[in-house]
């Protein structure tokens, strides 16, 4: 099994998962801020949610606390509900105004 001694030394610790979660979260948030396609922005939000989920699971295992995993279930359920509403809105917008981006939809300004 000693293909690479360096790799053999490597232990995938909780930090790896947390760093991965942080990176995913950053990607998601930056994407949300810079992209204008509603669908992409939507996916970015999903990415952020799942990054947090990953952190939850990781910490649940590291701290041996099932609470983190429970929280994930809640997030999944809420995210599923949010997807239903969000995608519905996106589809409705896209049907009426094909190619519309987020900045075109500012009718609710004060």
């Amino acid at each position: 099994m000693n293909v690479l001694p360096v790799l053999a030394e490597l232990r995938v610790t909780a930090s790896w998962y947390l760093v991965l979660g942080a990176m995913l979260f950053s990607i998601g948030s930056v994407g949300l801020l810079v992209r204008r396609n509603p669908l992409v922005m939507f996916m970015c939000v999903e990415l952020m949610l799942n990054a947090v989920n990953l952190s939850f699971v990781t910490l649940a295992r590291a701290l041996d606390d099932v609470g983190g995993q429970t929280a994930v279930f809640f997030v999944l359920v809420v995210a599923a509900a949010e997807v239903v509403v969000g995608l519905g809105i996106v589809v409705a917008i896209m049907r009426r105004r094909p190619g519309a981006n987020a900045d075109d939809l500012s009718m609710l300004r004060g």
Partner: protein
Amino acid sequence: MLTVAWLVPALPLAGFLLLVVFGRRLGEAAAGWLATAACTGAFVVAVGCLLDLASRPQDQRSDVTTLFTWIPVGSLNVELGFLVDPLSMTMMLFVTGIGALIHLYSIGYMHGDPKFSKFFLYLNLFVFSMLMLVMGDNLVVTFLGWEGVGACSYFLISFWQTREAAASAAKKAFVTNRIGDWGFMLAMFLTFQAVGSLNYADLNGAAAGLAGSTATAIAVLLFVGAMGKSAQLPLSVWLPDAMAGPTPVSALIHAATMVTAGVYLLCRVSPLLHEVPNVGTAIAVVGIVTALWAATVAIAQNDIKKVLAYSTVSQLGFMFIAVGSGAYVAAVFHMVTHAFFKALLFLGSGSVIHGVHDEQDMRRMGALRKLMPITYITFMIGFLAIAGIPPFAGFWSKDEILAAAFQKSTPLWVATFVAAGLTAFYMTRQVIMVFFGEARWKHEPAPTLSAAGHDDPEQGHVVTPHESSWLMTLPLVVLAVLATFGGLFNLPFWDGTRRLEHWLDPVLGEAEVPLTLSTSTLIVLALSAVAISLVGIGTGYLVYERRRVRAFEPAVFADGWYLDRSIGRFAGGPGMAAFEGVAWFDSHVVDGAVNGVAGGVRWSAERLRRTQTGFVRNYALGIAVGAVLLLVWFATRGGF
């Protein structure tokens, strides 16, 4: 019979409601007779109640009938309850009795008036309200009646509302009464706070246990209410002007019944007044000042009704002297006899006014005794009663007040004594100007006139005065009999003749200050009272009949000591300025604060709404920046 005591106010109310619906259709005479029947029915029921009440033993002569709970709110529980006891019984009898007579008189007096049925509608409403005032077993029911009689007084003063004087007099009466009502209302609030109930029984029962300042405040505020209703200085200005109303109204409301409501109220709370003797002294002082003020003013009036109006104010002052001296029985006694003779005098003056064709100026009357014999004889009886000549009713009641004043303090007695002499004097003046001397209604066109519509005096006064119809003279005769024998209610000779005192003892006995003067003192007081009356009459005779002495009628008297004018000056000058200042404060500072807050919110909202750009990514950026800032805060401050 006491179980149907509610019928006493219910009958006039029914009469009122019937007249509201059918008054116009009934036409002239029928509407008047209906109202008279309603009032007479109330009197008959009241007499039945009296017999029932009198048949009971003395300590059980108090009956409360609760019809329903009127205002149940939390710990405040006001019931529509009628209290029938000797005091309210006395009031009920003379309100309905004299009311019925005046209703009858009005059928004759208001003959031909286009608003005939409306007049009786108001009269019945008045009698109903007055009975609510008298019979209420708590302050709120009394207040209901109190406001009701005030409203009826307003309607009836302005009955001929096309006359400028009548309309403004009604407004004046209403506004002045509001000042009194303000006192009454505050007294109610304070009573509820201090006693927790508005029933007279609870208030009087708790009077001894109240804190001195609270008891004083309640008594003073109730007295303010009484001052407004009973026209005591300085709230007396409305009553003389109220004479712009029809004469039966002056007799019923502004002489016999409504204006005595203040005295009644104070008698009703006599145990409370008993606890605060200083308030009693203040009441007596206000009473005597009012009595003297009004008596001097009455000397210089030329309007036949104005003289009687000031006389009423003066006599009410006498009643307040009695109340202030703790002689509640004397106050009620004088209230009853005054109701007899002053209603008689007013109705007599109405008969005279009718006879000389709506002339009210006494300078254009004279020598009417031959032409109006019944009016003359009855008016003379009223005159002798008010002047205090025995054996007429006024002598006995005034004598008791003088005795009570003497016991309270000598200066008070002296002032009351002088007022009694002035009363005899100005009444003599009136009688001579109206019934004696030469007939001035034929020639002498008077220079000034209060009554409008007589621009052509030559034409208006060639008609010979005539006696009024039996509808008007019958009440005069009945009242004359009462004014003659009214003293029988409470003759001072021995215990058995003090009927009114024994009758009222269950209600007023507790607070009544007993007369401790010796019999000889009382006799001297009575003789001096007769003497001063005779002096007043004699002086009046010399001045106005014999014309030995020049009449003393200075402008200051004729103008009511400039009270009206001073109030007008004050209200129109500094008063108006002060209220304009308050109005300015209200519109600029109070409203300014409110509008300023609203304006500030609007201004900031105008700016805040810019942040709602509608761009989703803007909001996302906001959230992100916020999250980062929170993170930084946690990392640096929160010990994260």
